[in-house]
């Protein structure tokens, strides 16, 4: 595979703030790559430079071997598009949102109609043409944004945290669509994400960005082989606990993470380990749970973050756990700060760094 976007020694500063430092990386044609990193690591800035929305302070970007500058930026924007983290939609119907880019490319009414029908089917929103885009749910809005990008048959699709703050059902649809698009249309995809698991699911190659620098480029699994200290600085790796592990003899280990908390993990390993569990893998209930999950704890909610369709809760259960539930469940359980809750997760949901 040959490179489609080549970044060489790219730096970007805003006044005294350095957002990117000497970034050199190539993105290959037809490949799915991910930019991994915590908030503020420079992922969005890098994507914006690749989308032609920002000029680097120094360094060079090449698109299909041609140096990108003012003279060809409009041409490159016709071959690349970006889906933003905060869904940006025009205040009009789903149809007109998707039609915008097609009209700029001079598509006929018939072509536009056909294309819109096709992409809405792809993102599983058939029949949504006439609906006001901004009245859809957060997940549906992001799928419209994705459909709008797909309709353009572009060479490079850039996505900035496309599934942050949307519910798991929509996350799964978007991930499916991205895999399908890459496989069927051979579109080059670059996804900026803080979610290591998403990077692992979607991408063959990941670049870990920390404080504006690329720390490592490799398979997403290789990111886990980095020293724990680097990963610990990766703030969004939530629910990570370090402790002493003892083998149980049943194919699992019990990790004593302190504060009277023991986490059962699906490996046989003794000694010091760091484990983590994804917020969406934790089941939360307002009543004691009877389940096969090997890890269950009682705690109290100490913080609530409303992220639209989903709600993130910080639960103090010895240690602090971050749990993600849908807004509907949150309302139904009538939860509030200091509510007593019960957490449960399977041993198989526990991963080790």
């Amino acid at each position, binding site marked *: 595979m040959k490179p489609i976007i080549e970044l060489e020694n790219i730096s970007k500063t805003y006044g005294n703030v350095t957002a990117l430092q000497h970034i050199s990386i190539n993105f290959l044609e037809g490949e799915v790559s991910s930019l991994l990193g915590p908030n503020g690591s420079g992922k969005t800035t890098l994507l914006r430079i690749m989308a032609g*929305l920002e000029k680097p302070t120094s360094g060079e970007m090449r698109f299909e071997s041609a140096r990108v500058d003012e003279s060809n930026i409009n041409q490159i924007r016709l071959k690349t598009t970006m889906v933003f983290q905060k869904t940006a939609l025009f205040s009009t119907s789903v149809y007109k949102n998707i039609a915008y880019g097609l009209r700029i490319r001079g598509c006929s009414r018939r072509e536009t109609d056909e294309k819109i029908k096709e992409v809405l089917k792809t993102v599983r929103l058939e029949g949504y043409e*006439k609906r006001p885009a901004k009245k859809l749910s957060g997940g549906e809005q992001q799928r419209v944004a994705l459909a709008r990008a797909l309709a353009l048959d572009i060479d490079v699709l850039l996505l900035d945290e496309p599934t942050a703050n949307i519910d798991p059902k929509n996350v799964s649809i978007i991930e499916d669509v991205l895999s399908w698009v890459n496989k069927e249309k051979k579109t080059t995809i670059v996804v900026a994400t803080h979610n290591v698991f998403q990077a692992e699911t979607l991408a063959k190659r990941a670049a870990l960005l920390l404080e504006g620098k690329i720390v490592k480029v490799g398979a997403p699994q290789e990111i886990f082989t980095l020293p724990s200290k680097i990963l610990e600085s990766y703030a969004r790796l939530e629910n990570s606990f370090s402790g002493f592990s003892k083998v149980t003899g049943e194919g699992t280990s019990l990790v004593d993470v302190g504060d009277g908390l023991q986490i059962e993990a699906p490996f046989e390993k003794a000694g010091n380990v760091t484990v983590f569990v994804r917020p969406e893998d934790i089941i939360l209930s307002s009543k004691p749970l009877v389940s096969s999950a090997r890890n269950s704890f009682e705690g109290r909610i100490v913080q609530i973050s409303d992220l639209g369709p989903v709600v993130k809760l910080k639960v103090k259960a010895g240690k602090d756990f971050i749990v993600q539930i849908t807004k509907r469940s949150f309302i139904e359980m009538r939860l509030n700060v200091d509510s007593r809750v019960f957490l449960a997760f399977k041993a198989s949901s526990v991963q080790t760094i």
Partner: protein
Amino acid sequence: MGNEIIEGFLKALQLIFSGDPTVMEISARAVLVSGSAMMLSVLWGLPVAVLLGLKRFPGRFLAKGFFNAMLGIPTVSLGLILYLFFSNAGPVGFLRLLYTPTAMIIGQAILITPITVSFIASAIESVDPEIKDLAKTLGASETEAAIAVLKESSNGVFLALTASFNRAIAELGVVFMVGGNIAHLTSVLTTTIALETNKGEIALAIALAIILLFIVSTLTLTVNLIQRQKTRPIIELGKKIPRR
């Protein structure tokens, strides 16, 4: 006195509904002059508003402050300045524009330009900043992206146009000073209302005042209705919404 008002009111209604030629002529001229002034203010004010709303440049804050300050300019003061400008001794006196509808249009356009510029610039600023980037990522050029932002701010743009027109048609100072209220040439609603009231011709004044209020309120109401229609969900009532 009470009877005089009632009589005047009844006579005014009679003038309106009988299609009195003087009433119709004055009303049509007022709409034409203020409509033209509004269009002229959009012609030169829109590019300035787009620049102020979209671009960040040194002096932008001062420019915005200037237009905001000019929102409250006394019409008589502006009228006097323009009178001096258009009079024979003034810098453009040779154009012989004083006491012509053209002078009234230019005067009103200058008066309402701060409304056009400030309101449209604010409407553009209130649009999600990502809309411009979104348009660009979909292949739009700088100009196409600016048009996309302007479309998004159409509610504010309509409001600016309505407010500008209403301010123009309802103002007295500028049109009086540069138009002179000449019958069959420069008399408009406000100038005739003032003159006829002074003359004691209360019926014509009331008739014209009713028409002025009607124009202003109907225009505002129509724009509001259009806005409401635009923001209403497009789903037809009773139509089943497709489910995934």
